[in-house]
């Protein structure tokens, strides 16, 4: 692919994103909002697993922190939406920092299990802390207000969700190119080698945990801008696995991969709803085919094609 074709593709994608609310029904815009949330979730998890090589499975717990913090602050304390969403990001990031600090010595399966346990514990908290989360009844989310404008529909929320996603993608690209981004990848490739190169491995891991959690918290705030309800059942291990699958299918460690993975898996999930009798089988077959024929994910496949073409 030439530079010109990249530009054409980017312009086409941009035009589609801008025109989407004009052309699409509320349902389509709702799906678009949901997929943009998935993109931010996938980018966040990609920092931890794809970039830093830390197999954390608590991502959806932080997503929940973002949603509940935003919902509680706007609904009960009339805190302006943006401040509430920012508080969700900070709280998720802070708890992520703590989790990263506690678990930085763990690796591989032990890290996966301990973060999985944290995710399960958080879901239990969402389900059981009635006074705060409204427990198993689920919590209604007050419609967001931005600069005096009340977000009542998916169309209303779309510009905010899209803008936030673009900012987060830009920040992720910057992070990847930064010294910290290089430190993450050094840790992923070899901790002893990274140490030898002067990378503070512990610091890099803890920051990766915190950043990843903050991304999930941001995704939670975005979700709260267009959704009117959250239930603890939506914050379980199934959702975590979905986000993990997105970055694996997209291509671990790749920003375009995380984005495409989120879009593809989001679309596949929705399309498979039209084939209820076969969807579990089809979903499984799609994943197996990806693992067999595109082990480096969609990003790797596109890269190979580009190399062959040009």
């Amino acid at each position, binding site marked *: 692919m030439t530079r010109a074709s990249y530009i054409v593709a980017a312009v086409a994608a941009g035009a589609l994103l801008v025109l989407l609310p004009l052309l699409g*029904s*509320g*349902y*389509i815009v*709702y*799906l678009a909002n*949901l997929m943009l949330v998935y993109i931010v979730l996938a980018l966040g998890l990609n920092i931890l697993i794809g970039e830093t090589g830390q197999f954390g499975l608590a991502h959806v717990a932080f997503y929940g922190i973002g949603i509940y913090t935003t919902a509680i602050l706007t609904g009960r304390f009339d805190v302006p939406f943006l401040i509430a969403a920012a508080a969700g990001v900070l709280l998720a990031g802070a708890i992520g920092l703590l989790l990263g600090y506690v678990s930085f010595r763990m690796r591989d399966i032990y890290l996966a299990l301990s973060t999985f346990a944290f995710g399960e514990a958080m879901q239990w908290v969402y*389900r*059981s802390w009635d006074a705060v989360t409204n*427990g*198993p*009844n*689920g919590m*209604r989310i007050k419609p967001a207000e931005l600069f005096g404008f009340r977000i*009542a*529909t*998916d169309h209303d929320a779309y510009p905010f969700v899209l803008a936030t996603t673009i900012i987060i993608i830009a920040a992720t690209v910057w992070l990847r190119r930064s010294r910290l981004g290089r430190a993450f990848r050094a840790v992923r490739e070899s901790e002893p080698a990274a140490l030898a190169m002067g990378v503070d491995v512990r610091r890099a891991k803890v920051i990766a945990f915190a950043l990843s959690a903050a991304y999930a918290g941001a995704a939670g705030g975005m979700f709260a801008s267009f*959704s*009117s*309800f*959250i*239930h603890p*059942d*939506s914050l379980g291990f199934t959702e975590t696995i979905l986000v993990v699958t997105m970055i694996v299918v997209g291509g671990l460690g790749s920003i375009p991969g995380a984005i495409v993975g989120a879009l593809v898996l989001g679309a596949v999930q*929705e399309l498979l*709803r*039209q084939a*209820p*009798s076969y*969807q*579990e089988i089809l979903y499984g077959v799609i994943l197996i085919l990806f693992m067999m024929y595109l082990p480096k994910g969609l990003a790797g496949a596109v890269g190979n094609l580009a190399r062959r073409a040009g």
Partner: protein
Amino acid sequence: MRRMKAFALPGLIAGLALSTAAAAFPIKAGQGTYQDPGITDDTIKIGLFAPLSGPARAYGEDPLNAARMWYEMINEMGGIWGRKIELVIEDDRCTANDLVAAVKKLVEQDQVFMLNGGSCSAAAVAAQEYVLRNKVPYVMLNASGDGALYPPTDYIFGGISISQRAVGGIAVDFVVKHFNAKKIGYINHDDAYGAWNLETAEYMAKEHGVSLSVESINPNITDVTAPMLKIRAANPDVLILTTYARPAALILKRAHELGFKGPIVLTVTGTANLKQLVENVGTKDAFANFYVQDVINDSPDGPKQRWIIDMYKKRYPDLAAKPDHPTPYMPYGVASAQTVTHALMLAGPNPTRESVARILRTLTFESGVMAGMISFGENDRAGQESSIFLKFDGETQVLQPGVYTSRWTYKP
């Protein structure tokens, strides 16, 4: 059809009468433009949804099949006011996000006139705000949906099988009247369902002047020894279980091991597959003094249910040939679809979403399916609040006399 008529079928007869009246009515459905989407001179589009995949499929698939067969039957009889019902079916996967996506697709993409669906309460509640904002009449399929029914709204109607708030109160009413119980053990879940059914159980216990010893357990509990020991220590005359089937199996097993001899009553929350329940408990001896709640008007194989079973077998011969089909929840779908067709019929030849919702708010009819009338009211959006009880010995079910009705009412 001839065979169906042989039975006393109040609901079917009501449906037939209304359909015939509508078909014969000189005013053909209004020609021209309609203010709401999903309706033409010849068709009316209804969005039908339930979990059709994943683990919750067992709760939704058969009620949806039942609703569909009712709509098909209405179409065969000429439709409603000459309009054929056009169904758009969606899988809601029993999750909040998927149900909201399904509802938005049905309303905005498929442009349905009204909604009929949902087997899972929490997921159904997630659509509340959207449905109310768009003023689309929404009749739940077999979700109890208490979270969206109280406080009542203008467009959402549920509890067609039964609301959870009715479940607990009815169970207490039954054990007091049937066993003359004074001390009642009560095991519920520590989730929304549990909280809802306990609310009315406490109300009815107070009304009858009896005591309630409550143990709330996690739905995923794996060892029920502690709650059962506490229940045994309270020495109740009777034990009510409002749990799901899996914890119920654990409790029955442990109650048998602990020598609990009093009657045990399992509410409809845990009766999806009684054969499986017996297998999970492992011994029929545990069912020596065991009763189950049901919300239909007869035992599942009783004469009053015959017409629904026959209709199902005729419509879905392949499905009916499968083991455990039709499922116990199947008939609920008929009652839910009846609610929709009755409202459409009564709304007249030119229905609007608003007029249908207005009819639904005060709709009362005998379904010929459920234990009590389907009835909505000023502060009541839960359609069905009665149940029957059957003695189950691990093999056969014997209908107990009486229909028990919840007397709890919502106070705004």
